[in-house]
């Protein structure tokens, strides 16, 4: 499989009155054609800003992409003129947002919103676009598509709106879809419907998918590869199975120990990560996780760890990664 997307040392900062927020602080990762990559982290870790940066949707001011390269099929998106970038959005890279309630325009019909991209990117006439829209709604499992196209977003439930969003994302047969917390606002049975639909369609159509989520269960069920983010940096990367079996960063280790699991009997105590995530305006030269880390050593105060290989296709940004497993055993 060929590499579809390569993000190299991407840095996005927000310039606020409280100081410069390094929301994304030098992340690098790649996405192969047709694979599903998850970006996991808690609120404020930079996962959404990183995704919006890919499409150059960062509001400027206050934000700006200050460094790095985003190579999509060999072209650096950061050097494209605005006009050409507009053609990439929706046509080559599509996005599904978290809030199906606010990401559709309430005063336009579903049909109008769905055909807009087709007319713009595919130069279809109204009739062709209409026919394609019917096909798309049918594909995402919305019954009676002809009638539904004439309706407005408020006629649709949350799950149905998210299906419309997916239909829109797929409309121009993009190579890559970025889904930012696509199911967080939905009920669990609807979440399962939407995720199965996305998995099924991306597999069938060979579309690569970047899923941004905080839900470790969703990652375990759907992702091929995982990037874990903390305080604007990727701190661990690897195949999903490998990350869960052999977490090699104290933060990943902590996350896995702190989630209650459906298959765990009552009475087992959770091991939370103590403390709070750091203020991104106040980061220093050391590791951002060290105040909450039970493995921290003196070196962590002075130097930010970089991603190092710890196993096959498995990287961790921790000075102490070699000692984690051993220490974890002594602790337990």
């Amino acid at each position: 499989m060929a590499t579809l997307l390569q993000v190299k040392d991407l840095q996005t900062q927000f310039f606020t009155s409280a100081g410069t927020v390094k929301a994304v602080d030098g992340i690098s990762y790649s996405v192969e054609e047709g694979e599903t990559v998850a970006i996991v982290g808690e609120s404020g870790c930079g996962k959404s800003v990183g995704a919006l940066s890919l499409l150059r949707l960062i509001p400027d001011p206050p934000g700006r992409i200050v460094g790095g390269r985003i190579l999509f099929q060999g072209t650096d998106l950061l050097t494209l003129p605005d006009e050409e970038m507009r053609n990439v959005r929706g046509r080559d890279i599509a996005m599904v947002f978290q809030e199906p309630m606010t990401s559709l325009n309430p005063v336009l019909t579903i049909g109008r919103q769905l055909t807009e991209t087709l007319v713009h990117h595919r130069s279809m006439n109204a009739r062709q676009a209409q026919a394609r829209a019917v096909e798309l709604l049918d594909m995402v499992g919305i019954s009676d598509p002809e009638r539904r196209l004439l309706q407005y977003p408020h006629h649709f439930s949350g799950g149905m709106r998210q299906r419309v969003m997916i239909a829109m994302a797929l409309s121009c047969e993009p190579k890559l879809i970025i889904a930012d917390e696509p199911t967080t606002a939905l009920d669990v049975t609807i979440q399962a419907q939407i995720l199965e639909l996305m998995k099924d369609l991306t597999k069938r159509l060979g579309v690569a998918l970047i899923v941004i989520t905080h839900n470790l269960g969703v990652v375990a069920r759907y992702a091929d590869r995982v990037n874990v983010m903390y305080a604007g940096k990727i701190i661990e990367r690897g195949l999903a199975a490998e990350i869960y079996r052999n977490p090699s960063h104290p933060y990943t280790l902590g996350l896995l120990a702190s989630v209650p699991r459906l298959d765990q009997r009552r009475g087992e105590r959770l091991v939370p990560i103590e403390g709070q995530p750091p203020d991104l305006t106040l980061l220093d030269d050391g590791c951002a996780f060290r105040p909450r880390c039970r493995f921290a050593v003196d070196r962590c105060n002075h130097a930010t760890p970089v991603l190092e290989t710890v196993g096959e296709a498995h990287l961790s940004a921790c000075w102490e990664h070699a000692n984690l497993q051993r220490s974890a055993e002594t602790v337990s």
Partner: protein
Amino acid sequence: MSSASPVSKNSEQPLVQVRGLKKHFPVNEGAVISRTVGHVKAVDGVSFDIMKGETLGLVGESGCGKTTTGRCILMLEQLTEGQILFDGVDLATLDQKGRIALRRDIQVIFQDPYSSLNPRMKIGQIIAEPMRVHGIEPDPNRRAARVVELLSVCGLNPKFADRYPHEMSGGQRQRVGIARALSLNPQFIVCDEPVSALDVSIQAQVINLMEDLRNEFDLTFLFVAHDLSVVRHLCHRVAVMYLGKLVEIAECDELFDNPQHPYTKALLAAVPIPDPEIEKNREHSVMKGEIPSPMNPPSGCVFHPRCPVAVESCSTGLPELREIGPGHLVACTEV
């Protein structure tokens, strides 16, 4: 009460008894001359008990009536039908004075730590307010001392008493909400999605805090939540609601290891487990359709349009809760 009501066999009297609870909200149309065109049957005939010291989980998807059930117990809603007894006393028989007195014993922790704290009050005032209202600790100095005590019980720095809510993170605010609920030494707390707005690493801190407090103060919880993994971790017994009705209730491990109602099964199958090895071997069957409108619920068993095992009689007969094992009740004729 029918013999199939989930009344415990224990000779001890339950702390909370809910009997045939119904709460229907009228739907009005017309701006000038308003008339009622229908009812949303938010809660439609729900019965359960909560024993002293027990944590009952009430789960279901949005719109199933779990929050409304909690609000009815908190005396925030007028019941349409049914009875709620607290410590043997029917809440409907209480006069104004009796109700106010009882509110000391029944407290609440809300979901959203942002909107449930008054942004113009300091944390100390927020925690002290229930004591002031109920005339407990009338002496301001002793009240302040109690605030400090509550803050430290909930794992917060006593200095936070002088801060405003906006100076705190979500997890810290939720701890304030818990401290406020504890300020009156209640017996019973309704927790309405108390951790769903929090990040995972913070969520675990708050869950552990709630467990510790439950043990320390011998508290009884009604834990309303949609996150089944959290419910499994915290609750002694679990009740599953769908469209205003109780469909299954059982001991926690029994419900999760041996679910019987088709809706419970579908709900559990939909929750992903954070372990790719396990996920690979799980069946990912997806429940079709969406929750019907509670204004016009399906006839017969409300779940039958989405049910994989429905037979013809399901669309006419209303299934009663019946006991299929010790303390395990299911409202399904096909089990």
